[in-house]
Structures are given as structure tokens and as C-alpha cells.
């Protein structure tokens, strides 16, 4: 998908003012937070598990080339193909070639953030294919022609009523005319429509939660079972995955799975965990005739060697956004790209460019709750701060902010000057606010006083009062 991250301020405003979003987010938030809390509390060994999971990832990243090569060799042994793509454009081209060679028309898709990263639907449609999202959330936003607003629950911003309207409008073509509102009825309706698509698809494209080096398997976890139909029914199965998804062994995968499910949805395990390790073998009852894995770099190998390398531990669980107050307030679409919330505020600038996404690292209170819950202990706040440093160094910080910061720092480095200026300012503010105890308006401080009163200062600073006290004490 094309980035709209530069539009953060206006998109954030739109989110803040959208009453449906406010309602949807309020419900989702408590659901995610409470369920995760309960799932984590129910597992006494969670802290150890989390540590081990983190170590597995860290170890793999240290030897990423080795494990990727191993993975590739295994896939080849099983008769599958591995393709390396360094950019989204390359990845698109590879997938399109595979689809063309297969003479495909209809393409079913499982939920994949890398698929969004490389704007696969747009590319497939432009090339004349018919891509169909089969994850319920992805299906909903595809019908609505919207990008995902959450990495686990892509349609989280939609209320049930909106979905009912959407299905009512878009399913008439299949002879489904009744407007249903019950969740089970809505799911049933989507099933009916999707069933026919599953049976007639030529290519199935999924993402991967893991790539297992030991066995050459790509692994997806879902709760709907749509992934299984996507990767077994069509003639060709294509996996798109970031290179950081590899883990050494099946054992490692299952360790991280336990952490992932608890943090993502508060489950002990997701309903379906599916391993694909190659095309159908002689004697197999089903499975695709061809199996392709597209490994995407898109800036990842560069991160491997720099101060952002810890971000590659991310397992896309979504816990950071579920606990982010800014994400709740503005919604996922404000971030303007695939990755949202705290992890998006780090990844988006690194993948689409800091100048394009310069607001994202700034729109953060550095409250640290994301880091606290992140199962991979990724220091998100520190990375966000590092991106601000980059902005400052590359002069992407707006001139007014820069100037203000400079002037303030000039004084803060010179105590005598600082004392002089601040005591004068506080005396004035103190006088202005003496009657009410607070100020309702203040020139140049509209950012504060637009919605908040400014508590008036006492007038005399602590340092001045303290100096007097010391004189008196003598």
C-alpha cells in the first residue's frame, strides 16, 4: 500500500472526530487488554517463556544468513521454490510472474502484513487478477476498500452496524438480500460467499508467522481456518514473508507461538496452526502442485546492522498498539501505512522514509507502556527517541520547534541567564494569574491553553525563595 504517513496530523484529527471509531476502539481496547492480562497471569512461567522466546529471536538474528540458507535448502529439497526480493516492487513482480505462469484468474489470500507492505492486492488487480481476502477482517476492509487499521484485527475500526451495511450493499450480487446484524449471521454470510471463491481459486497467497529453518516449513496461525483453505485448495501456493520470520527449529517455533497467542488475542494457542513445507507429494490427498516462498528484505537487512536491529525481533502480536493511548485515540488509519501504533511508528519511518513519516515518532508521549507489554522486550520508546534524533540531525524537525529548543537549551546551559529570564517570566505570569490562580489564554501557548487552563506560577521561583531562606538561616 502507498504511504499516507505524511498526512498523520489530518488523519489523526479525522480519527479523533469519528464517533464510530471512538466506540469501536473503546470496545476493542478493553477486550484486548483484559484478555491478554488474564492469559499472561494464568501462566506462572510466562516471564521465563518470554525470555526464552526473545533469546531465540536474538540468536536467529545473529545468524540470520545461516538460517535463511538452511530454510531455502530445505524448501528446495521438498520441491518448492524460494525467491529473494529486496524491494516491494521486486516482490510484486515475482508474485505476478508466478500467477501468470500458472494461468491464474482468481487468487485467494490469507492475512499477510507483508502482502500489505508490498501492496499486493493493488498489483494483482492492476495486472487483471481477482484477489480475494479470506480472513474475515481483511475481507471486510477489502469490500470497504480500506487499508487495515490493526495488524491482528484489520477491521477493528468498524462497528457491527457498519459491517452489516457493507455486507448488505455488497452481497446482493450473490443473491443475499437480507440485512443481517448478528455476528454469527454475518460470519455465515461471508462464509457462503467465500466458499465458492475457495473452490475456484487458482493461486493461494498467504503470509507466514514463522519460517522454520530445520524443516523448510512456513507456518501460519489463524482462528478461522481460512488459511488452510487458501494454502491447500489452489494449484499454486505462494508465501510472502519478511526475512526476519525465520526460526531455527520446530521447538523454537512452538515456544514463540505460546507467547504470540497470549499477547495477540489472549488465547493459549490460536485455533489453527498450519505448516506448509512444499508442494503435494505423491500419495498426498491434497495440497498445491507448486509451492513458492518470496522472502522480502525491504530495509530489514539494513536494520540488522544498525541501532534499530532489535525491532527485527517483532513477532507482530499487536500488544504494543493495544496498549498505546495514542493509537486508541487516533485509530490505525492515522498512521497512513501497514504498520500502526508504536511498532508502526518505528517501522514506517525505516521502511518508507523518515521525511515521509516524520510525525509518527513525535506523536508519542514516551509513556513506555508498549515496551512494558512487548513480549520481545523491544525498547520501542528508545527507538522512537532515536528517530527523533535522526530527524533533528537531518533537519527534518520543523524550524519553529528547532529554534524554540535551541533558545531554551541556550538558557538552560547558562544558570545565571536562565534564572534571570525565568524569574522575570514567572513574576509576570504570576501577576497575570493572581486573581484566578490560572490562565485561560496565553500568547504563543495556544497548544496548551486551547483546551486547558495553565495553572499560574507562584510568582517567586523556588530557587529565589531558597536563596532567601539560606540568607535568613545564617
Amino acid at each position, binding site marked *: 500500500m502507498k504511504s499516507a504517513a505524511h498526512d498523520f496530523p489530518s488523519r489523526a484529527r479525522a480519527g479523533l472526530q469519528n464517533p464510530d471509531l471512538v466506540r469501536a476502539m473503546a470496545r476493542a481496547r478493553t477486550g484486548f487488554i483484559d484478555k491478554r492480562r488474564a492469559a499472561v497471569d494464568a501462566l506462572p512461567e510466562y516471564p521465563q517463556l518470554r525470555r526464552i522466546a526473545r533469546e531465540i529471536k536474538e540468536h536467529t538474528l545473529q545468524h540470520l544468513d545461516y538460517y535463511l540458507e538452511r530454510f531455502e535448502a530445505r524448501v528446495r529439497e521438498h520441491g518448492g521454490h524460494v525467491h529473494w526480493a529486496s524491494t516491494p516492487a521486486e516482490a510484486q513482480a515475482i508474485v505476478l510472474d508466478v500467477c501468470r505462469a500458472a494461468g491464474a484468474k482468481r487468487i485467494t489470500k490469507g492475512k499477510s502484513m507483508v502482502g500489505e507492505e508490498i501492496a499486493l492486492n493493488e498489483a494483482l488487480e492492476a495486472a487483471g487478477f481477482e484477489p480475494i481476502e479470506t480472513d474475515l477482517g481483511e475481507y471486510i476492509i477489502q469490500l470497504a476498500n480500506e487499508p487495515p487499521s490493526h495488524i491482528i484485527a484489520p477491521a477493528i475500526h468498524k462497528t457491527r452496524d457498519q459491517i452489516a451495511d457493507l455486507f448488505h450493499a455488497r452481497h446482493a450480487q450473490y443473491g443475499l438480500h437480507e440485512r443481517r446484524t448478528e455476528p454469527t449471521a454475518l460470519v455465515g454470510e461471508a462464509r457462503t460467499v467465500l466458499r465458492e471463491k475457495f473452490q475456484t481459486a487458482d493461486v493461494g497467497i498467504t503470509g507466514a508467522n514463522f519460517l522454520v529453518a530445520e524443516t523448510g516449513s512456513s507456518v501460519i496461525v489463524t482462528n478461522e481456518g481460512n488459511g488452510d483453505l487458501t494454502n491447500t485448495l489452489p494449484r499454486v501456493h505462494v508465501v510472502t514473508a519478511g526475512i526476519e520470520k525465520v526460526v531455527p527449529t520446530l521447538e523454537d517455533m512452538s515456544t514463540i507461538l505460546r507467547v504470540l497467542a497470549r499477547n495477540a488475542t489472549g488465547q493459549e494457542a490460536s485455533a489453527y496452526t498450519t505448516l506448509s513445507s512444499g508442494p503435494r507429494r505423491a500419495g498426498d490427498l491434497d495440497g498445491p502442485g507448486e509451492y513458492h516462498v518470496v522472502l522480502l528484505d525491504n530495509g530489514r537487512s539494513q536494520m540488522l546492522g544498525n541501532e534499530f536491529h532489535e525491532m527485527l525481533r517483532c513477532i507482530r502480536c499487536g500488544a504494543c498498539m493495544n496498549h498505546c493511548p495514542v493509537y486508541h485515540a487516533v485509530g490505525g488509519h492515522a498512521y497512513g501505512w501497514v504498520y500502526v501504533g508504536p511498532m508502526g511508528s518505528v517501522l514506517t519511518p525505516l521502511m518508507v522514509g523518515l521525511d515521509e513519516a516524520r510525525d509518527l515518532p513525535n506523536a508519542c508521549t514516551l509513556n513506555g507502556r508498549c515496551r512494558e507489554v512487548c513480549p520481545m522486550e523491544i525498547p520501542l520508546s528508545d527507538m522512537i527517541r532515536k528517530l527523533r534524533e535522526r530527524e533533528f540531525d537531518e533537519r527534518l524537525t520543523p524550524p519553529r520547534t528547532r529554534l524554540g529548543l535551541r533558545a531554551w537549551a541556550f538558557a538552560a546551559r547558562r544558570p545565571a541567564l536562565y534564572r534571570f529570564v525565568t524569574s522575570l517570566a514567572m513574576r509576570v505570569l504570576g501577576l497575570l494569574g493572581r486573581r484566578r490562580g490560572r490562565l485561560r489564554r496565553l500568547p504563543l501557548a495556544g497548544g496548551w491553553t486551547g483546551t486547558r487552563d495553565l*495553572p499560574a506560577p507562584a510568582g517567586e521561583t523556588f530557587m529565589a525563595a531558597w536563596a532567601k531562606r539560606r540568607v535568613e538561616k545564617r
Partner: protein
Amino acid sequence: MPNRVRQSPDDATARPRVGLLVTCLVDLFRPAVGFAAVRLLEDAGCVVDVPAVQTCCGQPAYNGGDSGNARAIAKRTIEAFEPFDYVVAPSGSCAGMLREHYPRLFPTGAGWHGRAQALAERTHELVSFLADVLGVREVAARFEADATYHDSCSGLREMGVRGQPRRLLASVGGLTVAEMRDSDACCGFGGTFCVKYPEISTRLVDEKCAKILATGAGVLLGGDLGCLMNIAGRLARESHPVRVFHVAEVLAGTAGRGIGERGR
């Protein structure tokens, strides 16, 4: 006084020497918090001094990406506070800056890194210092109120401040503290964030205010003046009569005029 460390008051050499990091907001906006901190520390047996060369801990520069200035300010602060046994701040966020972030401003191995690290290890947030280091279990103060307590993010997550203020507040005569939902959720202050993204900040502080109001408490307490000014400013703008104090003022028994209240 029950909380005084048992040492003869004139045995000044044996008493911990504390350098008070006043913090810029307390210095400029609410000196009463600084004096409350001094009183609490002195009552607990410390010798308190306030280095005159301190200005601000440098967070605005550091969080604004200007690490050059942050480093320069950090050096000044380190020099100013090195002579003390402890550095104590009535703010989890400023104490966190010294403890968590100063060492990171300098490359490991450099002289300044070592000095920053040494100071970091002696730096504390006021209330946790009283409780965890000095072993203060109770205070002699009275304050008639039903209150609720907001956990500021840095205090909570960088300095581990959570139970200490609640335990000490429990010893304040006449005071009850009711928990609000999500007391650990950010209030939307975030330093310069609140003026850079005022609309988002306002939504966050509105959510915080709603949770405060839901407790029915007449008083809000907390340990960081930035958050408290933000919340008090919004409560006042929306005409909610909740009074707001820094926890140190209540513990020291000096809480008079609430934040943003007119003189009485």
C-alpha cells in the same frame, strides 16, 4: 517525630547528604513542592542542599532529538550533584532522566559515562527514596480528603514508583485514597507532546479526567508536576471542582492551595 532517622541532629556527618534536584517545573511553577520535599527529607534525617547551578534535567532537548544540548546539560547537572550522597527529585520523570538516560548519552568507556553511571546509581524519586532507602513507614501529616492517585508513566516504569506513595498516604490522618481505573494510563502530557499534538493530548487527558471523576474523589494526587498541571488545567477548563496536589505536599502536611486554585 516518628519518621526521623534515629541519629542526634547535630551529628551532621553521619546523616545522608541529599542534593535536591528541584526540577524546572517545581522551580518555576510550584515552589511549595520543593519546600515540601525539603521538609520530608529533613524530617527523615537528611541534610538537604540545593545546588544553585541546576536548571533543568534536559528532557526537552533529549526527547526532542537534540542530543548535543542534552549532553551539555547533563554534564552540568552531573558536576553539580556529584558531591552528594544522593540526588533526589520530586518527579519520577526527571529522576528517570538522570538514572536511565544520562548514562546513555555518553559512549561506554568514556569518562563522562562512568560519572553519569555513578550518579545514576545514587539518583532517586522522592517518595520511593523516603520509603525504600530511608525506610520511612509513616508521616505525621493530616489532610481531610477523599483522594485518588495517578501513576505517572516515568515514575512507574522507570523508577518503580507504585506502592510507596500509597503506603505513605495511608498514614496521613483523615485521608482516604480510592483507586481509579487504569491509574497507570498516560495522562497525555508527554512533555512537549502536549503542545505539539494538542488534540491527541486533550483526548488522553479527557479520558484520565473521566476516570478520576468516576471515583467521586475530591482530590487528585500524583508525583509529577507536569502530569498534574495537565490534568488540573483540563479539570479547571471543564469546571470540575477536583483539587490537585503533588503527593509531597500532602505527605509534608503543607498542602494549602491546590494546583491552579486562586489564593484563599
